[in-house]
């Protein structure tokens, strides 16, 4: 039996690795799917594509962001630490098996331009 995409992602995450897939042309794919994709592991660096602060009633506000990884795929995550602008370079930090992001101190001056469609 083929392992489910979710199980492969979880197995990598348990070891602090962000797994993703590539299609036959080598393009990064997310979310993971069944059907002829190959697995790869991200270096965990990218830029904030979009972000919002969610303010549910009776709860502390929290960040919800979409992160464009340098390998060419986008995931939802949370940016921790001080709020960051769209375009800010970020790097992965792991917390209880969940990938979060923080401003990348090595490349904090860089701001990515608009992503191509």
């Amino acid at each position, binding site marked *: 039996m083929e392992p489910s995409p*979710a199980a492969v*992602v979880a197995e990598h995450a348990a070891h602090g690795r962000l797994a993703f897939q590539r299609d036959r042309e080598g393009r990064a794919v*997310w*979310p993971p799917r069944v059907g002829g994709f190959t697995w790869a592991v991200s270096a965990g660096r990218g830029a904030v*594509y*979009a*972000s*919002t*602060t*969610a*303010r*549910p009633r009776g709860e502390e506000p*929290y960040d*919800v962001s*979409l992160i464009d990884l340098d390998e060419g795929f*986008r*995931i*939802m*995550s*949370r940016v921790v630490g001080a709020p960051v602008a*769209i*375009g800010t370079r970020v790097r992965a930090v792991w917390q209880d098996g*969940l990938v979060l992001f923080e401003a990348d101190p090595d490349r904090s001056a860089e701001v990515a331009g*608009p*992503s191509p*469609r």
Partner: protein
Amino acid sequence: MSVVIAGAAESDLGQVAPGTTPEDLMAQASLRALAACGLTPADVDGLFAASTQLPWASVSLGQALRTRPRYSDSTQLGGGSALAHLHHARTAIAAGACDVALIAYGSTQRSVGRAAASVQERDLYEAPYRPPLPIAAYALAAARHMHEFGTTPKQLAAVAVSARAWAQGNERAWVREELTVDDVLAAPRVCDPLGVRDCCLVTDGGGALVLMAEERAHALGLTEGVRVLGVAEAHSHRHITAMPSLVHTAASESGARAFAEAGLGVGDVDSAQLYDAFTITPILFLEDLGFCAKGDGGPLAESGALAPGGVLPTNTNGGGLSYQHPGMNGMLMLIEAVRRLREEGDEVALVHGNGGVLSTQCTAILGR
């Protein structure tokens, strides 16, 4: 074959009588729309319906009306479902699969609560980050639009203010109090940059449309039918992470197909109903349907173009932001377009429905 909307009617709206079900509202609107055509449920042989509360919507509609259709369609495309049903019903009639199509919608989301009425289907990989859906997805799109094009909170607010101005002239609107740009900006934030007044209403309600070939309508003596000039659907993703660009929707595809079928362009449109789940959505659709260049939707809204007296009367009953928003608003938008064509002298009315998290896009162009 030319297909017409021969009858259109709303159910009770706002907060409906205690104990009323979504089936009741579908049936109520259906009986009103059929009566307007001099027809009864026995004359219907095609049923089309969707509701977040009724996964078997067209089957539930059949039971409620005691109709035994030969064509049945419960396609779920979210908020634009009624437009998809218009597309499917038009196609089914043209193919001879049914002769009299009934499209219905009903929701009691205000009475039962939105959480109970509309269970969110979460993406496995988004869920751990607890995005409040659907608003977080629209907030992300708004934030990205602001980043790429310089769209401002004031421009977003102009969409809500315009809708309210229309609602003030409509005694059936749920909210009619004065609303200013400053009021919208001062309202509590829900998901930055969107605040409470950037969000559509939560009301009960429903509606129904009766479709048939134009020749059949004329044979029945129905001369007030509204022609379906063009109608199309598209979708690009289910969950927001998979949307290729948060500032380009598949409305560009559905819009282009609908205009091509109608043989018309944006300059021919007398009024528009653009799905306003949140203030960012009409801005995106103005751009993607071609009413302005990409990135110019904010300034267009701010110019007053959408408001009463503007060059493109938009969401003319007050829209989802101020008239009614019973969960999936495509049906009430279509009914408003029919009313514009019959009562306000419009020649061409555009309706654009959106569903999910900018996922599904359906465009209809209706004419007299």
